[in-house]
Structures are given as structure tokens and as C-alpha cells.
């Protein structure tokens, strides 16, 4: 079992350094018994693991986002690493099970914990990969990392120990091409939308756009950047015609239909929140009244919709 092979070194390190590392080692050992994450090869060389449509807790260990990897002739690029080091570790095992080629890049599509907390699983070994992200990702993680870690420890318990924030060492300001050998990835950094550090990955070989959380399918879209910015970005996205796409949460087949569904939700948020502000409604009243026509169309609506209204209200109340 690869997890066991891995552990003795970490135990030595743990006794030398920090109890938390030991705990994570033991936890990794226990969890690694579950082995490689189940993956689906959606297109040649593009492997996707579907996270659960849940919020992070001790049961799912932060396995709530779609994550995966892309295999080139020379090496592999991992795209997002899951919500805890345990999920990252299982993703690493999945890469090893699929190919002997080394991992040269770990790309984070944005700052959210369910996409970055597995990073530490890829930092081990002699040939550490290059961590890649939006030019604003490092700063965003620096500002929020402490809170993310506290929330993860609270929600996922000891399974989360050892999950670290690892900022990108290769930053994308506009676009960047990564060559995996016979396979080129086009990375694009977007203006503030879902967050202020959204990055997409386009695989030229298969015409697959890894759009991550810029497009939600099933899962309620989450506004943690700018609603108006996101609508602008989506107008741009609608001009793309990817052969396939990978969302950060959930699965969809029809690009334009998925975009239209998300746009409808965001426009309902925009118009109803704006109207509530104009009518002198308080934030609490707006949270209770805006967007309920969308309730049955999305998963985890109760967990995320009210927060969206709060964020959008704060964004819009100074707009005139």
C-alpha cells in the first residue's frame, strides 16, 4: 500500500518537528487504505474525479470539488487537489495508478479550500512540482489561509491536520502556456468573477476547457468575487466553444445551456437584490426575500444562497 510505504519517513519528520505532522501521517495511513480516488477519463489523458455535492465535513474529508489531472507525453499536470491533504494524497495515488510519468505542475483554479488543501500531498519527494495559479492567488491565500485552516479543522476534524496552504510559485497574469510534452495547456487568468483569482485550463489536444468554479452545474453558484464581474466574464465565456468542459462542482454536457442556467440565477440575484435595496429593505429582509424562485433548481441552496445575497447586497448598495 503506497500510503504505508510513504509513512516511516514522515513519522521521523513528525517526531522531529511537530505533533500535527505525525497525526496527519497516521491519519493519512488510515485514509490511504481507501486507495486512489476513483477517476473518470473524460477524454484521452484527462482524468476527473467527481467530488460530492456537499459541504466539507469529517465524513467527506473535503472531497467536495471536481479535481483531476492531465497526462502529457513527458509529465502530468494536476488540476486542483481537493479539500484536505488526505484527498490530495488519494489523488496522487490515482496519478501513480494511471501513469508512471512525474507530476510537473499542480494548478489551482482559485483560492477555495476544497480546491487547494490537498496541495501539500504533492510537495513531497525529490521532484516537487511547480505550483501554478492566478497572479492574485498567493495574496488571496495569504489573506484567508488562516481562516480556511481553522474552518477546516473545525469542520473536518483531525482528518484535516497537515493540510497546508501552499501558494503558487508560477503566477499567471493574463495567459500562460504549459507544455506537458505533446500536449499544450492554455491557462487563462480572469478578471474578478467567482473569486478575484479564477484561472481556467484549456487542453488544446482534446478541446477540453477545465472551467472549474466559473461554471457551476447542479451546485448553487457561489459569489465570492463580484456578481457584476462574473456576469461580464460569462459573456466572454459564452464566446468560447469548448468541445468538452469540466466544472468545479457537478457535471453538465451542454456548454451554453449550463451557462444560461447560471446566468439566470445570477441575474435573479442582481435584479432582486437591487430592487430590495431601492425599496429600502434591510440586508436581513433582502436575505429572506431575494431569489427564492431559484430554490428548487440548485443543490445546497440553503447553504449558499443566503450568503450570496449578503455578498451581492454589500456589492450593490453603494453602486449609485
Amino acid at each position: 500500500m503506497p500510503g504505508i510505504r510513504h509513512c516511516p519517513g514522515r513519522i521521523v519528520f513528525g517526531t522531529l518537528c511537530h505533533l500535527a505532522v505525525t497525526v496527519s501521517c497516521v491519519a493519512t495511513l488510515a485514509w490511504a487504505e481507501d486507495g486512489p480516488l476513483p477517476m473518470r477519463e473524460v477524454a484521452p489523458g484527462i482524468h476527473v474525479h467527481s467530488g460530492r455535492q456537499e459541504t466539507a465535513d469529517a465524513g467527506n474529508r473535503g472531497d467536495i470539488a471536481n479535481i483531476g489531472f492531465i497526462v502529457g507525453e513527458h509529465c502530468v499536470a494536476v488540476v486542483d487537489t481537493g479539500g484536505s491533504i488526505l484527498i490530495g494524497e488519494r489523488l496522487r495515488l490515482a496519478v501513480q495508478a494511471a501513469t508512471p510519468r512525474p507530476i510537473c505542475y499542480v494548478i489551482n483554479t482559485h483560492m477555495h479550500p476544497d480546491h487547494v488543501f490537498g496541495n501539500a500531498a504533492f510537495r513531497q519527494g525529490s521532484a516537487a512540482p511547480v505550483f501554478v495559479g492566478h497572479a492574485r492567488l498567493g495574496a488571496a491565500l495569504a489573506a484567508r489561509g488562516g481562516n480556511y485552516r481553522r474552518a477546516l479543522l473545525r469542520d473536518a476534524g483531525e482528518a484535516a491536520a497537515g493540510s497546508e496552504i501552499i501558494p503558487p510559485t508560477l503566477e499567471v497574469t493574463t495567459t500562460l502556456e504549459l507544455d506537458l510534452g505533446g500536449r499544450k495547456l492554455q491557462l487563462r487568468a480572469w478578471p474578478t468573477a467567482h473569486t478575484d483569482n479564477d484561472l481556467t485550463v484549456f487542453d488544446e489536444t482534446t478541446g477540453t476547457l477545465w472551467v472549474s468554479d466559473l461554471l457551476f452545474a447542479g451546485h448553487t453558484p457561489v459569489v465570492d468575487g463580484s456578481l457584476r464581474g462574473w456576469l461580464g466574464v460569462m459573456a466572454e465565456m459564452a464566446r468560447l466553444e469548448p468541445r468538452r468542459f469540466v466544472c468545479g462542482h457537478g457535471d453538465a454536457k451542454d456548454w451554453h445551456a449550463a451557462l444560461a442556467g447560471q446566468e439566470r440565477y445570477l441575474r435573479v440575484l442582481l435584479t432582486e437584490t437591487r430592487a430590495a435595496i431601492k425599496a429600502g429593505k434591510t440586508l436581513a429582509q433582502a436575505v429572506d426575500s431575494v431569489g427564492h424562485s431559484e430554490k428548487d433548481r440548485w443543490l445546497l441552496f440553503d447553504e449558499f444562497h443566503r450568503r450570496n445575497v449578503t455578498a451581492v447586497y454589500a456589492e450593490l448598495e453603494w453602486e449609485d
Partner: protein
Amino acid sequence: MNREPVLPAGPTTTFRSWCQWLCALLVLAFAAPACAADDEIWTRIRTGLFADRPIAEQADQIIQLSVPVRAEDAATVPIGIRTLLRPDANVFVEKIYLVIDKNPSPLGAVFTFTPESGRADLETRVRIEDYTMVRAIAELSDGRLYMASRFVKASGGCSAPAGKDQEAARARLGRMKLRVDGPVVYGQPNLAQLMISHPNNSGLAMDQLTRLYVPARFVRRIDVTYGGKRVMAAEVDFTISENPNFRFHFVPRADGELKAEVLDSNDVRFESSVAVREGTVPN
């Protein structure tokens, strides 16, 4: 019985003494061992604020607190305080203390009301740093104390990074909107809203570009008058969310000016006013 404002009120030496006060409360909050019962934090705060004065806790008929059980955004938690005493009684609600036990600065706000307020009701938005009790304590003009409290699940609100567009925020710092939910009716409590564009930096959040902690700068005093008479005043800190927002009442009896004066922790003053006439919607 100490009936002085708990926060120092004078504008000159206040920042230092405010800091000392904050430090004292910080020590108070963090000196407690992590495993201490939550009640212990409140006991210390309570002793500091009210010594051994009795506080009635089953006080729904005097004060009600509305706050979401699970905060949607810990940096912007809407909070409503409603009091049910009318000023035509012999006593009125003179102060409301807002205490958030587990915040770095547990005493987040002290609101002062007068008979000119009509109703000592208040709505605002606060930052909440951890799963915590939130408490609103009403002090009546005869010194009696009543408390409403709720447990709130939220975390990271104080150290959360400020809003998404800091440049736009800086450009409008100090801009205010003061409006009255009209049409105005004389002789009755009318609802007013004060919005202040201000980052209200806690000093606990990191700048996303420089990766340095943003210095604390926040609104600390608000004074609202109508026709020269106070209707609401507040001593606040970074517990109040970015772009502080308050809804409160006042009783106009004739044409006049509703005026808000705001002082921040850099001793910068902002003010805004609006003319009030019966039957109109002033903004």
C-alpha cells in the same frame, strides 16, 4: 453605580486610552485558557462592564435580538435589536451594549438613545470571529439592565480580508448617505438610515497586494441629532462591518435638519445632513 460611557468619549486623548481599553479586553478575552467554559468569557466581560449589577435575562418584553443562527458571511452579519419600552413610560432605554463574547474586541458597540429617538431600535452589521454568544444589553434610564442573547455560528469575520475592490473603497472613503424612510410623520418615530463608506479596518486582516497587515482604521463615534438634539449616538469599533450601516428612529416634531457626525480612529470627521419636512421622503 458606574453610569459613565464605557468607551472614552473625548476626541483628543481617546485613541490611546481606547487602545489601552482594547488591549485590556484583548487580554481579558485571550487570557482565558482555550478550554475555559464559554460562560467564563462572559463573566469577565460582564464584571468589567456592569460589576455586580443584576441583569434580567428573560427579557423578551424589553429587548429582542435578531441575528442569523448561522451567519452567511462572518464579515457581514446583519443584526437587529428591538426594544419594547416606549418613551412615554417614565423610563426609557438609554443605552444598548453589544457584546460578542469571542470577538477580539468583545464590546463592539455602545448605543445611546434619548426620548427623541422614539424607539431604541437598531439595525447594523457586524463581524464575528468565532462561534459565539452575541448579547444585547439594554440599560434603562433608571439603571436597570436587561439582556437578550443568541448563539451564532460564524467564523473569521474580523480577520477576513476587506471587500473585493479596495481602490473603489478608498476613493469613496467618508462618503455618507443619510435618508429617512418616508413619508415623514411628525410626532412619531420615523425610521432613518445612515450609511458610511469606510473600510473599518480591524488591523487583523492582511492587504492582498502588500501582504502586510492593514493598519486598524475604523469609525469609532457617531452622533446623530435632529434640530440640534441628540437622537442616537454610538461608540463603536471594527466589530461593525466594512461600510458601517445603521438604522434607527427619531421623532421629528417640526421642520428640521437630521444630521450625522462621524469620527474615525484617525480623528477624521465626516458629516452629512438632510432636511426633514412632514410628508416628504428626505434623502
